[in-house]
């Protein structure tokens, strides 16, 4: 895949995940000549040489255990992880932060749980509602047409619920609950905790030439039938079919080049296979490298016109970063002991979930969370029922122990809270003045701090999950985490929902991008990942990344057709 140095593309996109894939799809379809840089390698989940779909644990001597580049197990589709050799990041003293980076075609869309939640009307105007954080420069109504279009193009299952801040989409039918999900649902109904069918980007009817889900439960391995969403097979390969997309893999972006007028001219990158420095030239640059990588790229793109880095005249690049709050509680449910054997796999994720159901004005923390539920009779693999000594018999060995495994399999149910963090001025990234990665690119230094708004929310999660488990007649073996233990809050970054850092806004003094995700100080530069987000919401961000990227792409197309840019 060589091109002459003089080729000037219409658009250069950095990153091939949800945001980059969507921009490539939308722009190439409109006729733009697009070049895409991806820091990792080629990947095609429809190809059995890549996907491990339908493999059994005994097909590998490792039985599904983790490997250095696959921390979530050898068959997890996502290559990358919490540490990448030669690509460090640093943390300020006292900061606890974990950064998951994908390094492959499709990025972290190969990793995620496919939970696809629209932000609600209130999520775009939190400052107006409670005075904290900031409002977005756009409303739900502004972005709704693109949510609809994403639903139609990519596909999602769910149910029409008419909840005020969890808008319905254009849904395929949702799969019926598994056995333990019925118990959870009945329990939550009694406790007045809203519990509804999950909303996952898994198709349950044929869509755009893709087969419906076959319920093998292994979405995370890469779906050979393209029945769920990952960027390559749903967005990038169709974009390549237009003939308008040039894909360059193993290309680690170094900086965005600008001309004497301050406008972007292209992207410098390292060809990881040869170590050589290269460059692509383009009339428009779209960054979709992930919230923090895009911030890093901008901060590393300094010039006389942009001395603080590109899109950073306001000084906000790297600021206002957030991650989803998280904590988990699992319980042993005696009622589920000796569950009759049946295939309970379903889709690769929960069939039910609980959207935020309470009124924060009556609580001691300002923002909500949703609950994810896990359990069941999943494929036995490495780690199967570890810690059996916690069950009633207290351990043991021999025939009795063997019977315990059979009896207790499927009798544990877990709950994960996923909540909204409010941006704060102690949580940000900057360029580490001393450390560079193996390509010589300066790395990020992360500062992170949770506040009471997060701690008290996570405390509420712990109390709620323990109450649900008790109502189910179950037992929790772990003690309630104390205040000193942060009530069990996961490290910043650990939920892999980093957002912000290149936020959009109404004012060029308080934001990097305008309402079209276009840099205030560089009109042919756009950001199409989680970077533009102004707030986190109690929702997973991917569907909003996709809708925003599509909206941004349509703006670029309109501007080009009107003769601008």
């Amino acid at each position: 895949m060589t091109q002459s140095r003089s080729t000037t593309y219409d658009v250069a996109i950095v990153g091939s995940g949800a945001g980059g894939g969507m921009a490539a799809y939308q722009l190439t379809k409109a006729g733009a000549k697009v070049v895409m840089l991806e820091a990792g390698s080629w990947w095609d989940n429809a190809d059995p040489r890549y996907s491990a779909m339908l493999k059994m644990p005994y097909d590998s001597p490792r039985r599904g255990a983790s490997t250095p580049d696959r921390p979530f197990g050898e068959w997890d589709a996502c290559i990358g992880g919490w540490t990448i050799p030669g690509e460090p990041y640093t943390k300020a003293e006292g900061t606890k932060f974990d950064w998951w980076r994908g390094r492959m075609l499709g990025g972290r869309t190969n990793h995620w749980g496919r939970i696809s939640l629209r932000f609600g009307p209130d999520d775009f105007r939190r400052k107006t509602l409670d005075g904290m954080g900031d409002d977005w420069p756009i409303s739900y109504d502004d972005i709704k047409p693109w949510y609809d279009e994403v639903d139609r193009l990519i596909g999602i299952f769910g149910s029409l619920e008419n909840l005020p801040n969890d808008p319905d989409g254009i849904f395929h039918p949702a799969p019926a609950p598994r056995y333990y999900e019925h118990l959870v649902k009945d329990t939550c109904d009694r406790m007045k905790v809203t519990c509804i069918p999950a909303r996952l980007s898994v198709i349950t009817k044929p869509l755009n030439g893709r087969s419906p889900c076959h319920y093998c439960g292994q979405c995370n391995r890469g779906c050979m039938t393209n029945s769920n969403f990952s960027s390559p097979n749903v967005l990038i390969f169709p974009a390549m079919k237009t003939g308008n997309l040039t894909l360059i893999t193993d290309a680690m972006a170094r900086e965005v080049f600008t001309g004497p007028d301050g406008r972007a001219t292209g992207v410098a990158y390292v060809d990881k296979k040869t170590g050589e420095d290269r460059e692509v030239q383009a009339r428009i640059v779209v960054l979709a490298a992930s919230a923090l990588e895009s911030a890093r790229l901008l901060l590393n793109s300094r010039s006389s016109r942009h001395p603080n880095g590109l899109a950073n005249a306001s000084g906000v690049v790297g600021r206002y970063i957030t991650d989803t709050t998280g904590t988990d509680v699992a319980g042993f449910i005696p009622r589920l002991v000796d569950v009759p054997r049946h295939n309970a796999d379903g889709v690769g994720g929960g069939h039910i979930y609980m959207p935020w159901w309470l009124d924060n004005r009556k609580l001691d923390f300002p923002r909500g969370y949703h609950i994810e539920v896990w359990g069941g009779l999943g494929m036995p693999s490495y780690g199967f029922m570890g810690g059996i000594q916690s069950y009633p018999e207290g351990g043991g060995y021999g025939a009795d122990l063997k019977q315990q495994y059979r009896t207790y399999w499927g009798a544990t149910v877990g709950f994960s809270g996923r909540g909204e963090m409010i941006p704060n001025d102690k949580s940000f990234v900057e360029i580490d003045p001393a450390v560079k990665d193996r390509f010589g690119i300066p790395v990020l230094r992360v500062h992170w701090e949770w506040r009471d708004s997060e701690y008290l929310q996570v405390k509420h999660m712990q109390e709620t999950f323990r109450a649900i488990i008790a109502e189910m007649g179950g037992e929790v073996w772990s003690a309630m985490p104390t205040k000193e233990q942060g009530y069990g809050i996961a490290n910043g970054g650990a939920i892999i929902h980093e957002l912000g850092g290149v936020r959009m806004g109404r004012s060029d003094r308080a934001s990097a991008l305008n309402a079209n995700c276009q840099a205030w100080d560089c009109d042919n530069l756009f950001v199409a990942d989680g970077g533009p987000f102004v707030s986190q919401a109690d929702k997973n961000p991917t569907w909003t990344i996709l809708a925003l990227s599509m909206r941004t792409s349509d703006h670029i197309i309109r501007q080009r057709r009107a003769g601008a840019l």
Partner: protein
Amino acid sequence: MSEMNRRDALQQLLAVPAGMMIAPEVVERAAAHVEAALAPVAAEASAETQAAQPAARAAYSPKQFTTDEWRLLRVLVDYVIPRDARSGSATDAGVPEFMDFMLGEYASMRTWMKNGLGWMNAECRARFGRGFVSCTDAQRRVVLDAIAYPKKAAPEMKPGVDFFNNLRNLTASGFWSSRVGVRDLGYSGNVPVGKWEGTPPQVMAWLKRA
């Protein structure tokens, strides 16, 4: 069964979605365990396993264990998961070979395993004047009883308790993820199904029981 009949039977069993864009070989490979899981567990199955094992295993030479450690390990894992009426033992399921592989891949496992096997022999020598393998069944059980129940164990048994927790976990990982273990559990997922019917009626009835 002829190839076509077998395939028909399989198709019916699995109700593979029409037009599913995937190679039939992939589906069939995945489906093999479901046939096994749905078949009644028969005594001859484990007898067959038993007969097949010794010859197949005789040639194996461990890479991470000394000869003495290997003997000890093979005895020990069958105390953790023995043969019973439903399925074979940990050694029948290839658990020692699985551990040999894993120790080569994960350095931390090597440490606790080697230390733990050493602890077992030292404890047996202190109590009975000989290593675990040379002890009688009753003597071995005295030591196992002292470490297999963490909440009841004496504080000075902690190294043994920690080792046994790890060993039990790794034995379970290896056993239940083997063909023998998957079949024993009756795991019938990881296979394409044409329509998700939800929880079967008999399971719903069980859930709603008083």
